């Protein structure tokens, strides 16, 4: 089977040969298989948008290759574009003076679709995103969330096998973000499309994506399934509740061994720690026992992707 997307040794340097050269991508490689929903995560400047734009041919890479269904972006851009669509800057990607339906008609038209071909699916998307009642209203009169949904609908309406969503939930309130990701999840499940979703919103990625690629400073830090990534942290994050106070010398010992340890002293003493190897849990227990402390409870913390992301990007944990 041909991968939906192949990225090989992709390099992008802006202002090449100058003092202020920016190495946006430093030789990244990955493949995405048809039907996969992949999250692209990373802090600002990690290279997520540059990666997407290189695949789409909107930015020329300095080195390496990108292919969509086997077509090289550099030599067969038209074939690549025919198979891809994108939301690139949230709701800035649509015409605010035109209505949702007019935008959908226009962008599907640009992909060579007649109205009779595009309208039934456009109407389905309007229904799915709960925009049907407002489909004739100019986009500028819609709420920020609705505008965002129109932008996503415009990208999906072209029915391309690959869809790039760059920050689709940027600036949305919790409720709208939840609604949008519910719709995206439904579409991903029903239509088996390949979706690459870049976002700062970990909940969107955790909820919608099967796999996540975490980038930092133009490099891939981790490329794994969301489940694997979460289970990795699930087994290593612990919360101890101690009956007595933690002496300062013991806290120093703990910090020397686990630099990110969190100690809270309220009615009880709570110690939160992430161990890098599972057997380190015994070391902790031994330390508490030797100090004569009673452990009232040990709970395995339920990590979310945000925590995993932060620790991976900071280099605290290696996968």
């Amino acid at each position, binding site marked *: 089977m041909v991968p939906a997307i192949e990225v090989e040794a992709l390099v*992008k340097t*802006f*202002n090449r040969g100058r003092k202020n050269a920016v190495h946006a991508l430093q030789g990244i490689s990955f493949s995405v298989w048809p039907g996969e929903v992949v999250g692209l995560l990373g802090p600002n400047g990690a290279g997520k948008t*540059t990666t997407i*734009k290189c695949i*789409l*041919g*909107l*930015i*020329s890479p300095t080195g390496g290759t990108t292919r969509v269904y086997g077509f090289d972006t550099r030599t067969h851009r*038209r074939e690549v*574009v*025919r198979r*891809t*669509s*994108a939301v*690139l*800057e949230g709701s*800035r*990607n*649509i*015409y*605010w*003076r*035109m209505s949702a339906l*007019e935008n959908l*008609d*226009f*962008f*599907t*038209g*640009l*992909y*060579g*679709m*007649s109205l009779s071909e595009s309208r039934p699916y456009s109407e389905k998307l309007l229904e799915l995103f709960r925009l049907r009642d407002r489909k004739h209203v*100019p986009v500028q009169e819609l709420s920020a969330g609705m505008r965002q949904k129109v932008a996503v609908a*415009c990208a999906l309406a072209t029915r391309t096998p690959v869809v790039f969503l760059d920050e689709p939930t940027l600036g949305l309130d919790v409720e709208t973000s939840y609604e949008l990701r519910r719709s995206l999840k439904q579409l991903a499940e029903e239509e088996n499309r390949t979706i690459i979703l870049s976002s700062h919103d970990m909940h969107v990625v955790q909820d919608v994506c099967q796999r996540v690629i975490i980038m930092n400073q133009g490099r891939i830090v981790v490329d794994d399934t969301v489940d694997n990534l979460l289970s990795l942290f699930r087994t290593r994050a612990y919360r101890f509740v101690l009956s007595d106070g933690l002496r300062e010398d013991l806290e120093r010992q703990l910090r020397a061994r686990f630099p990110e340890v969190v100690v809270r002293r309220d009615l009880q003493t709570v110690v939160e720690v992430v161990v890098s190897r599972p057997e380190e849990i015994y070391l902790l227990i031994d330390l508490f026992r030797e100090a004569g402390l009673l452990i009232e409870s040990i709970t395995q913390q339920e990590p979310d992707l945000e925590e995993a992301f932060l620790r991976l990007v900071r280099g605290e944990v290696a996968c």
Partner: protein
Amino acid sequence: MLKELFCVMRAVFRQQIIMMRRYMFNTMSSMVTLYIVFMLLFFGVRAVGGAAVTTATLEGMVVGYALWMLSIMGYSDLAWGLIQEAQMGTLEKLYLSPLGFRWICGFRQLTGLIITLVMVTVLVGIIMLTTGVYLRLDLVSVLPLLLLGVLPAYGFGFMSAGLALIYKRIQSAFQILQFVFVGFMVAPASWPISAYLPLNMGNRLLNQVMVQGRRLWELDPSDIGTLVLVAAAYCGLGLALFGRMETVARDRGLLGHY
């Protein structure tokens, strides 16, 4: 491929009409401004020139003004249009059309030209009614000359659009160029270089047709040759520069910036 082309053309045409309707106030106010500017020029020339101003001079003015209106509208549609797309964040989306941005640009210009032709015809009609200066509207002769005459302005439009892709804020240069067009158009025929200036030969030949009543086939073939050559040269140059700037913009990642 043909079906795709047709669908893209229909989508662009429909979008342009919708946008024109949504920006109706802007469309109407630009027409009114152009009319007022012409009337001020017209009465100014008559008042200053007195008896020296002949009917032919006034007719020539109307022809020149019509060509200038068509030129600046076409030029600004292209250059401003691109800047606005970059501002709105839709430019990159247009680059994602499988048929390519050039086709979208081409269809947009075609639509713009049709709309502009209608607007200029209406304006010239109103100008003729108000001033009492009537021109000969032999469409068979006028249309080809008008189209070839404005093509250099489109060439400049492509050049400016290309520069806008890289440098973004070049509006002041745009505005100056609109007045430079007037200079190109009225440069005296006695200058050897004037025939090769944008809009100049078009203006001369349109005057021969609309003022002197000559037909297209009665015009000097070498003049028509020069008109075609100038149109092709400026348009080709504009497209080549635009292509070069597009490559630079892709390399620097500037398509989505403003």
